[in-house]
């Protein structure tokens, strides 16, 4: 059994990274040309790592399952990225960003890693601006900031509601430069299905070419996983459909430890499930809770009438509404932390007060905000604040200015106008703090195998603050891993190419082949989605927001039974020689 040694450097927390960088081994540029590194995943973490490693001179092979690195799940991040630039002069500092992140994570993060994250955060912004990432700016031409939940300073850099997209396209452009120079060989539409270990060291992967179906061997001196989180084990989540945990799971089976899998972030403001047909949930930005009031009907019969479409929420009198967060948490009201808001919504809905057809939704109501802003505007503009229509019009304008794009997105999906009737929201799985265990160098418990970005566990403890996942992905990829990996690779300068003819490669390939054969030959009666949905339901009901011993034990038994059923009764149509999306789903389930 491996021992867990975090390899945290000596010294005061603020000196550790500097000291470490001064001490670690380096590989000279001429030798880097003889060293290959595999990077699986091209999101913010993998994309930035691949680009930097190639720039430093390593030969990089990068893999993603999408048709282009530009489509990685990171593209969907909305709100922003933190950095301790203190451009607003509001007292921000490396220490404050470090402190907020550790506190936000319930003191469960590895503090040395978080301090380093805060230290390099400012480099990220410099880097991205130099790359041409079009962050929001003020009229004076300098960068703008916004503030995010749970902190007292304005340190979040953003590009409208598309920050993840712009940062990922920045990393993608850095990769493109290296692909053009031949330093990165990009393997699109490839899925890693196993890790190859030779003499205790990670030396390659087995991947399936998703277009031809070919099972391929790829060797390298080190393997880096930037493969994202495991949110999709819950079936429904805000993650992209393709996000899956296969790569992390495969290395876990090969001996990499997994840490804190219990820490899943469940985001309170997502558009509720509208029926069984749905496979994906959409996030509504957390910022809406600044102005929206959350409620359910106070009486069970009203909730039932609403569910049956016999009663409209706007018909309910104030005294018949239960603003349960304001009632239970008078000092925080609707701005309680994410986990508290999520659990409270579930509790109300479980008690029968849910407001949509499925009974799993609560209201997020902007009527009071529209009134408040409308009156304020009427006063400012010296108009009649008792003119109800005018007040509504003015208030609607203010709300539209702040949240217009979100309201529009909501209306497209739900087909209801949130200016006229309250929005419906429900918590959904969003992010996974837990992941592959790594040491200070971001190495897993398998030598030469690294994990970066959402795939690792170290920086967010039990709860992640907004705008910190993007920061971590880019910090790991641009500024940490490319240097710490050199310490390990310095021992490989004389190793020479790793041959893919080694018996370890053959064995791993055969395992993958027999697994695929088994799936193709199983010819059972149920689809992969059928099993995935059932797994999601077990996870959500018993390993979701509220958990207890009984439920967890039941889940273990049920999942074991489901697993057996999957292997004996799954049906994968078509063939394995070519594009087969059902087979792709199946290989990510086993």
């Amino acid at each position, binding site marked *: 059994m491996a021992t867990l040694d975090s390899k945290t450097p000596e010294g005061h927390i603020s000196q550790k990274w500097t000291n470490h960088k001064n001490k670690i081994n380096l590989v000279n540029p001429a030798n880097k040309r003889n060293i290959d590194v595999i990077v699986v995943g091209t999101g913010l973490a993998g994309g*930035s790592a691949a680009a930097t490693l190639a*720039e430093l001179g390593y030969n990089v092979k990068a893999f993603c399952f*999408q*048709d*282009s690195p*530009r*489509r990685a*799940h990171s*593209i969907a991040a909305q709100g922003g990225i933190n950095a301790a*630039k203190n451009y607003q002069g509001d007292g921000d500092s490396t220490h404050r960003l470090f402190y907020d992140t550790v506190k936000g994570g319930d003191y469960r993060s590895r503090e040395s890693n978080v301090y380093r994250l805060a230290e390099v955060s400012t*480099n*990220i*912004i*410099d*880097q*991205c*601006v*130099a*790359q*041409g990432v*079009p962050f929001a*700016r*003020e*009229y*004076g*031409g*300098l960068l703008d900031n916004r503030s995010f939940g749970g902190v007292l300073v304005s340190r979040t850099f953003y*590009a*409208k509601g*598309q920050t993840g*997209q*712009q940062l990922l*396209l920045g990393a993608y*452009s850095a990769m*493109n*430069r290296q692909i*053009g120079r031949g330093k990165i060989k*990009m393997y*699109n539409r490839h899925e890693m299905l196993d890790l190859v270990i030779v003499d205790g060291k990670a030396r390659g992967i087995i991947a399936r070419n998703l*277009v031809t179906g070919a099972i391929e061997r790829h060797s390298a001196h080190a393997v880096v996983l930037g493969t994202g989180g495991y949110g999709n084990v819950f079936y429904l989540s805000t993650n*992209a*459909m*393709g996000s899956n945990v296969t790569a992390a799971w495969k290395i876990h089976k090969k001996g990499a430890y997994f840490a804190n899998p219990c820490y899943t972030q469940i985001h309170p403001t997502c558009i509720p499930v*509208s*029926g069984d*047909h*749905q*496979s994906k949930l*959409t996030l509504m930005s957390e910022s809406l809770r600044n102005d929206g009031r959350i409620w359910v009907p106070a009486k069970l019969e009203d909730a039932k009438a609403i569910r049956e479409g016999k009663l409209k929420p706007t018909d309910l009198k104030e005294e018949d509404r239960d603003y349960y967060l304001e009632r239970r948490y008078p000092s925080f009201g609707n701005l309680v932390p994410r986990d508290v808001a999520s659990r409270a919504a579930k509790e109300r809905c479980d008690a029968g007060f849910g407001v949509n057809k499925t009974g799993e939704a609560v209201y997020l109501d902007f009527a009071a905000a529209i009134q408040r802003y409308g009156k304020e505007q009427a006063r400012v503009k010296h108009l009649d604040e008792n003119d109800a229509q005018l007040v509504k019009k003015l208030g609607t304008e203010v709300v539209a200015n702040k949240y217009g794009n979100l309201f529009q*997105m909501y209306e497209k999906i*739900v*087909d209801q106008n949130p200016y006229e009737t309250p929005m419906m929201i429900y918590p959904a799985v969003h992010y996974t703090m837990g992941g592959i265990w790594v040491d200070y160098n971001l190495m897993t418990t398998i030598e030469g195998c690294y994990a970066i970005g959402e795939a690792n566990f170290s920086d967010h403890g039990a709860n992640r603050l907004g705008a910190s996942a993007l920061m971590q992905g880019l910090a790991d990829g*641009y500024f940490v891993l490319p240097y710490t990996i050199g310490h390990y690779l310095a021992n490989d300068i004389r190793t020479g190419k790793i041959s893919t003819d080694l018996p370890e490669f053959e064995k791993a390939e055969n395992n993958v082949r027999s697994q695929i054969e088994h799936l193709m030959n199983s010819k059972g009666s149920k*689809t992969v989605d059928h099993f995935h949905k059932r797994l999601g339901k077990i996870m959500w009901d018993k390993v979701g927001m509220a958990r207890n011993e009984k439920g967890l034990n039941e889940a273990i038994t049920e999942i074991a039974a489901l697993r057996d059923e999957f292997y004996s009764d799954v049906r994968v*149509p*078509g063939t394995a020689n*070519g*594009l087969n*999306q*059902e087979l792709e789903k199946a290989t990510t389930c086993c």
Partner: protein
Amino acid sequence: MNLTLKIWRQTDADTKGKIVDYKINDVSPDMSFLDMLDMLNEQLNNKGEEPVAFDHDCREGICGSCSLQINGEPHGPDRYITTCQLHMRTFKDGDTIFIEPFRAKAFPVIKDLVVDRSSFDRVQHAGGFISVNTSGNTIDANAIPVKKHDADKAFDAATCIGCGACVAACKNASAMLFVSAKVSQFALLPQGRVEATDRVMNMVRQMDEEGFGNCTNTGACEIECPKGISLENIARMNREYLSASLKG
């Protein structure tokens, strides 16, 4: 709702494809277009037939994976949305819907509705970047002020999701809107000016090599672009190209 779907089926790049008819019943108007295809696929799968392959991932209009030609229009009848944001309430009970892949010489079909858009990537490899190393030791971000107007315009160009609808909409299968969006993003920023000449020459050369057609200013691309990328960008790229050619 009950619908008739006429879907392009093609086993692989080398086999000829054809339109196949499918009936689908009890489609809820709340479903997204891709939820509806999921439902069809579940039914096909249960009947032992091979499901229809199509690209998708984020299902919220940002990754650019989804790429369906619906009733002859890329991303279907609505404006400023991708296929995955299209909802079935746009259609009526009894409708017949044609579903085909994006068509262009530079986007060969891989299977059914899945096409190969790697030509877009190769155009980006040729010059879609600013040559700065990712060392982090660049100048302070605020040392380069950028006029808000220019920064906003650069952002608008940068919101292109690389879906290829512009190419599919164009009778010449031209990629001008896509390429000009990247050229414009960098041309509008001081950081990007340094290499502006080489960038536009290299990207246009690669675009031509990939077999995209010429631009004849029909403007179909702008109308079908889910992100509202403006024709202004094509005009800007033409200016950049002209001045680069004169220098070159």
